[in-house]
C-alpha cells in the first residue's frame, strides 16, 4: 500500500501540472525543480492543456504484476503541444488503430489497483481527439 506516494502526485496525475523555467521558458513535465535544458531553478507551476500527439507507441503483451489483467494495453510517448514527451497509456482506441502523429487528449482513468481490496490508482491516459469531435 503506497497511499502517500500516489497522493503526493495528485496534481500531476489528475491535472498535468508541471513547471515552466523562468530562465529559458522551457515547459517541464514531469516537474523536476531544476530545468532539464538550462539547469536553472524551475519551480513555477504550469498546467498543461493535455493536448498532444503520438510520438511513439507499443502494445504490451507481457505485463508486470498489477497489469496482467489489462493485457494487451498500449503505452505511448505523447508529445504534448507545449513541448515535452510524456509516457502514458492510450485508451478508447484499438491497438491496431493507433498511428504515429495521431492527435490525442488527456483523460483521467484507472491505472492499476492494489488487489481486489486495495487502493485504486487513478491518473492520466490519452485518447484520440477525433472521438469527441
Amino acid at each position, binding site marked *: 500500500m503506497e497511499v502517500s506516494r500516489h497522493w503526493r502526485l495528485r496534481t500531476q496525475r489528475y491535472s498535468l501540472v508541471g513547471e515552466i523555467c523562468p530562465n529559458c521558458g522551457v515547459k517541464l513535465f514531469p516537474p523536476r525543480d531544476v530545468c*532539464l535544458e538550462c539547469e536553472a531553478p524551475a519551480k513555477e507551476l504550469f498546467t498543461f492543456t493535455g493536448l498532444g500527439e503520438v510520438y511513439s507507441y507499443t*502494445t504490451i503483451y*507481457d*505485463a508486470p*504484476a498489477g497489469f496482467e489483467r489489462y493485457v494487451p494495453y498500449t503505452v505511448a510517448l505523447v508529445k504534448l503541444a507545449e513541448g515535452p514527451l510524456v*509516457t502514458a497509456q492510450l485508451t478508447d482506441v484499438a491497438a491496431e488503430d493507433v498511428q*504515429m502523429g495521431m492527435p490525442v487528449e488527456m483523460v483521467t482513468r484507472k491505472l492499476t489497483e492494489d488487489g481486489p481490496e486495495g487502493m485504486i490508482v487513478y491518473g492520466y491516459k490519452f485518447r484520440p481527439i477525433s472521438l469527441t469531435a
Partner: protein
Amino acid sequence: MTNVSIIGIGQTEVREHWDTSLRHLAWYAIEAALDDAITTDIDAIYVGNMLAGSLSRQDHLGALIADFAGMRGREAITVEAADASGAAALRQAVLAIQSGLVQTALVVGVEKMTDQTGSAIGHALATTLDQDYEAVQGATPAALAALMMRRYLHTYGLQLADFAGFSINAHRNAAHNPYALFRHPLPPERFAAGTLVAAPVTLFDQAPLADGAAAVIVTHSERAMDMSPHPVRIAGSALATDTLALHDRRDILWLAAAAESAQKAMRHAGITPAGIHLFELHDAYTILAALSLEACGFAPPGQGWQLARDGQIGLDGRIPISTFGGLKARGHAGGATGVYQIVELARQLRGEAGECQVPGARVGLAQSLGGSGGTAVTHVLTIDNFQPPFSAQADRF
C-alpha cells in the same frame, strides 16, 4: 596514473539454476577466478547485482558474499546500476586500484532471477524505470525498447526484419559457448515469426533473463605479470549517466550516456573506433545493439542496423559483436551481465576463445547499459603490451 590489469576470470553457465542459491552462484564464479589468477590475496570485493532485494529478499550482498567466499573481514559492497551493475562494480574496482589504497580487487556480478517467476520478475524489473512516471503506466523495459524501436523504424523507413541479423549472429556465436543459455541457431524465418512481447519487440529481439555469475580479479599492471601468465590490460574505463526516464531525453534515438562513456574510455586508452577489434555491447534488445553501435562511433545515426544486414558484426566482420552469444543468446543475467562481457573479452584477448575467437584480437570494447541507457559503463581492454596509436589521456573530473 596506475594501470590496472585483469589477472583472473571465472563464470558460471547462464541458465535456470534451480538447484543453486545466489550465494553459491557467486562463489562458483569467484572460485573459478581465484583458480585462474593463482591468488587468494584479495583486498576488496565489489558485488554487481540488480534485483536480489526484490527477487530473493536479500540485500547486503557485500557482507554475505565476502563471508561465504571465506573472505570475512574484507572491504565489500554492492554496486547497483540496473543491468549495468556488474560493469559499474568493475569501474569501482578500477578507481580503487588507481587510488593506490587497494592492491587487488575482486569483482563479482551475480543475479538470481528464478527465485521468482513471470509477472513478479516483471514487477521487479520495473523498479529500474522511473516508478512515478513510467512504471505506474504499466511500462516495462521491453516497452521502452519498443518505443525506441517504433520511432527508429518510422524515422528511417525500416521493418522489424531489418534487425534480424543481430539475433541470428548472437545465436550463431553462442552455439560454441558452453556457458551460453541458447546454443541453437536462429533461422531467419523464425525471427520473423517471433511472439510479441511489446510490439514491435518480439521474443527474438529480447535477451532472455536467467541466473548467472561472473567474476574478475584486477590489480596493478606492474604486479599482474607475477600473478597471471596472460594479464589483460584495462586501458580505458568510464561511466556516464543520462536521464532515467526515456521521455526526458532530447532525442530518444541517441544513447547519450553510451556515447559519453565510450568517448571517455577510448580517449583514456588512446584509441578510436577504427582501432577496436571487437565490441561486446548491450544487446538486451536488438534496437539497443543498433543504437549502441551508433553512439560508440561505429555507424552514423540511423545506420547501425546496416552493420548487421551486411554481415559486418560476425567473427570475421569489420566489428564483431556478441562473440560468445551476447545478452541475446549467452543469456542476460541482470547485474552479472557486465562482468560476463569482461570475462569474454579477456578470453578473446588471451586467444582462448576457441570457435568464438576473433582472429588477431588485441583491443576490445565492452559496454553495459542500465535500463534504456540511464547508465552506461564502457571499458577498453587490450593485450598487456599493446601500444595505442594515440597518447592515452587520464580521466579528469
